C-alpha cells in the first residue's frame, strides 16, 4: 500500500495564487461580456445562434473528460502506479489536442463566412454583433492559448516522470508528484473557465 506523499503546502499555495490571477484575468473579460450583453441583448442573441452548439457541446464533453483523466493521473501517481499515471497524462494531453482541433475547425468555418473582426462582412453588421464575435474570438482564443500551454506543461511533467522512472524510479512520487499535482490544478482551472464560456457563448440564442 502506497503512502501518500503530497507536495509541500507552500508549493500548492503558490499555484493557487497564480490561479487567482487567472480568475481575475478571465473575470475582466467576463465583465466586459456582461456589460455589452446587457446593452446588446438582441444582437448577442442572434449572433449566438450562428455558433455551432454541436461543436461547443462536444468540446465541453472533451474538456470534462480530460479533467477526469488528469485527476486519475494524479491519483495513480500517488499510489505509485507510474505507468498508469503516464497513460492518463498522455490521454489528457490527447484530449486537449482534440479540443484545439475542434476549435480550429470551428474557427475556420467562421472565417469562411467572414465572421471575424476586420472582415467587411462582419463590419457591415450591427455593432452588437461585431462585439459578440470580437468577444467570442478574444475569450475562446485566450482560453485556447491556455489549453495549448496546459498541453505543453502536461507533456513536460510526463517527461520528468518518465525520466525519473527510467532512472530507477523509486522516488518518482517524491520528486515529481507535486509537479503533476500542480499541473492538474492548472488544467482543471482551464476546464472551469470553459464551463462558463460554453453557456455564455453557445446557449444564449
Amino acid at each position, binding site marked *: 500500500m502506497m503512502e501518500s506523499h503530497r507536495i509541500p503546502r507552500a508549493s500548492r499555495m503558490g499555484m493557487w495564487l497564480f490561479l487567482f490571477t487567472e*480568475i481575475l484575468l478571465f473575470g475582466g473579460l467576463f465583465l466586459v461580456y456582461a456589460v455589452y450583453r446587457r446593452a446588446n441583448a438582441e444582437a448577442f442573441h442572434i449572433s449566438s445562434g450562428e455558433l455551432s452548439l454541436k461543436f461547443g457541446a462536444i468540446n465541453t464533453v472533451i474538456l470534462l473528460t480530460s479533467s477526469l483523466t*488528469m485527476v486519475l493521473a494524479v491519483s*495513480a501517481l500517488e499510489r505509485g502506479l507510474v505507468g498508469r499515471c503516464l497513460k492518463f497524462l498522455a490521454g489528457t494531453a490527447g484530449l486537449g489536442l482534440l479540443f484545439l482541433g475542434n476549435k480550429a475547425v470551428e474557427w475556420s468555418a467562421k472565417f469562411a463566412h467572414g465572421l471575424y473582426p476586420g472582415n467587411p462582412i462582419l463590419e457591415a453588421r450591427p455593432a452588437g454583433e461585431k462585439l459578440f464575435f470580437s468577444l467570442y474570438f478574444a475569450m475562446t482564443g485566450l482560453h485556447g492559448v491556455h489549453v495549448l500551454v496546459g498541453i505543453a506543461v502536461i507533456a513536460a511533467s510526463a517527461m520528468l516522470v518518465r525520466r525519473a522512472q527510467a532512472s530507477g524510479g523509486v522516488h518518482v512520487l517524491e520528486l515529481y508528484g507535486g509537479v503533476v499535482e500542480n499541473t492538474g490544478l492548472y488544467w482543471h482551472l482551464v476546464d472551469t473557465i470553459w464551463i*462558463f464560456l460554453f453557456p455564455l457563448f453557445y446557449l444564449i440564442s
Partner: protein
Amino acid sequence: MVAEPGWGEGHEGDSRRAPAGASERGLVALWAALLALTALTIFVSRLDIGHWRAVCAITIASTKAALVVAIYMRLKDEDRAFKYMFCAALFTMAVILGLTFVDVAFR
C-alpha cells in the same frame, strides 16, 4: 492491477489529508454528474422561460465549477488558509462586477 486506495494511513507531515487517490469510483461518478449537468444546461437553454434561462445557465455553470474546484482541485481537503484565499479572490471579483454593474445601470 489497480491497488486499493490507501485510506489515509501514514500521512504525517502535510496537514491536508485526503486519502491517497481518493476513491477513483467517486472521481468517475463526478465526471458523470458533470456530463449530466451539461446535458441539463443544454436542455434548459431550449425552454421558453425568458430571463430564467440565463439564471439557470449561470447557476448550473457555477455548480459545475464548484464541483471541479472542490473535488478535482481538492479545495475541500485543503486547510482554511486556502479556502479563505479562494473566497478573497471570489470576493474581489464580486466587488469588481458589482461596482461596474452599479455604474453601468445608473449612468
